[in-house]
């Protein structure tokens, strides 16, 4: 009986706790975006008040879009992220298909070898990676980043996709074989469309760390032409530390793309986690 009587109270307590933490989670982002729309004086005198007709100013956004090279950085980030995701998904799915579909010598061993990379951060091999990129002339090209992120993403992709490919019905594939389809057609035409939800999950898991990475752009591609958005905004903060409007606007703009990506894919991410993709 006590549990029933306490219910409204405990529900209120639950909401209270969650609202409190939600405020903590959103507050810093709110402060940045809010102040990016204010004049310099208002940023300093009243950092927490909303922009009024008096204190509103978009001068920061003008500075950023005019001289910050933000468009180029954004484009670099986009190329690197999309290309890496494409290669991770294509090569990862191909390898997963081989591992889940065929019985061959060393199948288990190959699976274990590829899974090693899940627990070992690729950053540890940076000295060797830089040496190799220098030797092959790939330093300060976007290819260096694409290759590194592809290698970094493959282990988890293979791990997740192999699980899903095992669930694709054998009857379907065998029917295809009887109809004379090649193994390649079976993979691309029959199996790939069926594991699309799993592919989306893998894409979301890889997308955010690639987009936000600071380490490899800093080391492998720091030149002006290859800077990514994350590295670009880091440098921007240093250069324009006196121009508060520009810094705050730059950071607000840098939040946007990843926010859009998240809104598009969040359902997939949650479905992926709840369906046990990483358990």
């Amino acid at each position: 009986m006590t549990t029933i009587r306490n219910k409204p109270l405990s529900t209120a307590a639950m909401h209270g706790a969650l609202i409190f933490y939600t405020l903590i989670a959103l507050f810093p982002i709110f402060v940045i975006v809010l102040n990016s729309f204010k004049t310099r004086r208002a940023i300093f005198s009243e950092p927490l008040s909303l922009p009024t007709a008096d204190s509103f100013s978009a001068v920061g956004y003008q500075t950023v879009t005019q001289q910050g090279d933000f468009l180029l950085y954004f484009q670099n980030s986009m190329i690197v992220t999309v290309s890496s995701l494409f290669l991770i998904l294509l090569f990862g799915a191909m390898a997963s298909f081989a591992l889940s579909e065929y019985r061959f010598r060393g199948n288990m061993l190959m699976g274990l070898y590829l899974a090693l990379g899940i627990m070992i951060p690729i950053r540890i091999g940076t000295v060797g990676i830089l040496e190799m990129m220098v030797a092959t002339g790939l330093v300060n090209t976007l290819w260096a980043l694409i290759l590194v992120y592809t290698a970094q993403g493959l282990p988890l992709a293979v791990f997740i996709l192999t699980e899903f490919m095992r669930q694709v019905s054998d009857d379907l594939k065998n029917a295809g074989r009887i109809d004379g389809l090649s193994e390649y057609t079976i993979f691309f035409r029959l199996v790939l469309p069926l594991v699309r939800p799993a592919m989306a999950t893998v894409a979301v898991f890889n997308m955010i760390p690639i987009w936000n990475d600071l380490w490899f752009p800093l080391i492998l591609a720091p030149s002006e032409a290859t800077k990514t958005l994350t590295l670009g905004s880091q440098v921007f903060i240093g250069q324009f530390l006196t121009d508060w409007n520009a810094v705050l606007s730059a950071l607000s703009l840098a939040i946007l793309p990843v926010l859009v990506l998240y809104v598009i894919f969040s359902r997939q991410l949650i479905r992926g986690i709840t369906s046990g993709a990483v358990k």
Partner: protein
Amino acid sequence: MDNPPDSTAQHKPRIRWHIVLFLAPAVLIYTAVMIYPLFNTLRLALYDQVDQQRVFVGLQNFRELFGDPLWSDQFWNALGNNFWFFAIHMLIQNPLGIALAALLSHPRLRFAALYRSAIFLPTILSFVIVGFAWKLILSPIWGIAPGMLEAVGLKWLYQPWLGKEEYALSALSLISVWQWVGIPMMLIYAALLSIPDEVIEAGEIDGVTGMAAFWKIKLPLIMPSIGIISILTFVANFNAFDLIYAAQGALAGPDFSTDILGTFLYRTFFGFQLQLGDPHMGAAVASAMFAIILIGVCLYLFGIQRRIRRYQL
């Protein structure tokens, strides 16, 4: 069935090229860009640069790293800081994530999806944004934090947390917790949802409800997930770099009090200001990090994971 016997004999050792083709791109890229450089890094740790010649010096670099005060002071400082960084994540981030997940998974809670997205939002932001936003808030000059504390009459609590040696590392660890708490929350949330209703109902019939149901039924069932989260936290923390670099710079100020292995590796490898970059010492630091992560993962796999009982659901 009318194959001649020698044809089946030929059949067996035939290479099935499609398997090779399916595997080749992934295995080649992974081997060339991840595994080979990793072992090359470990190998380079045994060399040194003398008169622009690469010379094999055996374990000399490690002897310097662990024993020569020029290096070892920094190394042990970074290692100790890294353990504190990890401890705060284990003591605050993971319990907080579990608590949030427990609240969110309550069956009659409204707006659960909204809360979940909001709390997860910091996780998708780049370290640059996170570092700068918190630097602003905690800054004594700009003064959001002192102003806010004053509003609730707690101004005396305020310290320039990121600027004082004794607080800076803890403050940064808490910022990192703020950013990453969404990950344990999501994973535990998924684990809690996958507990079958019958188990909970059986507990209710026996009078185990509310908090008791969480401690006695759900928590033991999600132990394997908590184990995985712990090892993920360990690997991520001992490989962290970005937040500290973005907030405090490569020198991990004030006075190296926020230096962890990631920032130490960056400085050693690339150099910074007066310090020259040294790829071989960098490789030695990376090898030490590799050993630490490997030991942690092995302890988990052989020591902890085998003891966690997996309940048959």
